[in-house]
């Protein structure tokens, strides 16, 4: 338990002291969302209708952006090999990384999402549902992202190929994510989203650990 706590503290410290990464992600998220009205025209009725999809696309892209720092720095400086020798199983190390990755790349987006939602003409209940659906769905995005990052960590130009692998896996998250904002049965979609997140977060550390350990030996 103390090792796990130390691992969490290490990851958090690395993520927060690494410069303006968190701010960059939030800016990227808001800018991607805010660029859409320029492309489709500032029609408020249309924007309100497609806003849930825009918010989710922006969140999906912003989560992809932060993936490369999940394993790559540790792989490059050799700490990943040391972490594999640790008393803590590799899957738990990855679980700790996953938690911190979610804290530094998803929570800021969720905090920023009301601003984006207002820009996209969302109001009242839809706004709350947006925040709640992001809160429930982003853990699944982070988990799939961890699998993709683990699979591509030993490839030199893996940063480009990971999004191609992750996107097909993330489609259900996007479906139920936007569904839980717009659809008439939004609570059912929310439950599905929560189930997806629970399942993905429970299984991803093991899949990612298997991928990393088979790439290294």
């Amino acid at each position, binding site marked *: 338990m103390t090792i796990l706590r130390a691992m969490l503290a290490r990851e958090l410290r690395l993520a927060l002291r690494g410069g303006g990464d968190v701010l960059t992600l939030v800016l990227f998220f808001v800018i991607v969302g805010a660029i859409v009205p320029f492309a489709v025209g500032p029609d408020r009725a249309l924007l309100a209708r497609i806003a849930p999809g825009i918010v989710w696309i922006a969140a999906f892209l912003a989560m992809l952006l932060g993936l490369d720092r999940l394993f790559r720095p540790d792989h490059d400086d050799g700490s990943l090999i040391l972490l594999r020798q640790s008393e803590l199983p590799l899957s738990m190390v990855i679980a700790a990384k996953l938690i911190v990755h979610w804290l530094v790349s998803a929570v800021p987006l969720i905090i920023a999402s009301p601003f984006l939602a207002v820009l996209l003409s969302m109001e009242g209940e839809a706004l709350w549902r947006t925040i709640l659906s992001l809160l429930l769905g982003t853990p699944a995005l982070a988990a799939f992202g961890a699998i993709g990052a683990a699979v591509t960590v030993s490839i030199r130009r893996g940063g480009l*190929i990971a999004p191609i692998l992750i996107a097909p*896996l993330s489609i259900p998250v996007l479906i139920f994510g936007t569904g839980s904002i717009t659809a008439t049965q939004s609570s059912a979609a929310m439950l599905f989203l929560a189930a997806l997140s629970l399942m993905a977060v429970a299984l991803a550390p093991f899949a990612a650990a298997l991928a990393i350990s*088979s790439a290294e030996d």
Partner: protein
Amino acid sequence: MSIETAPKLNWWNRIANPGQFVIWTKPLLWPLVIVTAVLFVVGLYFAFFNSPQDYQMGDTVRIMYVHVPNAWLSQFVYGVMTVSAVGTLVWRHPMADVSMKAAAPLGALFTALALFTGSLWGRPTWGTFWEWDGRMTSTLVLLFIYLGLIALWRAFDDQLRAARVIAVFTLVGAINIPIIKFSVDWWSTLHQPASVFRADGPRMPGSILTPLFVMFFAFTFLFITLQLKAMHTEVKRRRVIGLQRRMAQGDRA
């Protein structure tokens, strides 16, 4: 362990040697080609000349004889890859990762053909080339997974290491297969539900079912033939790479 007490190689271990595998399976290749060709001739004859028109769809129903086998293979090939991935991870069987690599482009091709023939069939009967219906969407996702796996194979330099990593991702991607199979039951939007493999027997008359089954086997044998040939090619490619590497090292020494 002396020679006498060493366990005899069984067929499983023997085909683990790539060279032995090629020697053992090479005689199968030509018979498989002949069987495939015969099945295609018979199947196409039935499909074009000896099966009735549909009372609603007319001649376009004949697209089914190409579409259904391709759609079936798009899932079956992924099944082969999943089994191979287990073989790679659990037994580290050398031929399993060759089979996994050889199957990916074939699966992508069959999936693309299933989508293509499906949209050709959908235009006259449903009035649209494409609809975001459950089964079509999940088949498109399957195509993306195949293409992602091919891209992943090409990105790795070391193919032996690549195999185990890709096996992990293949298993993760296998979640999509049951979604495709049951998508027509879960979201009944446009694509018709299963009508051949049903618990209460197929829902088609024999005159349509016969050519469908013949084409079904024709395409499956086509896959087996191509898969075997692709595996032989992959074994040879690895041998060439190994020789080139040894030659390069020899030059340096």
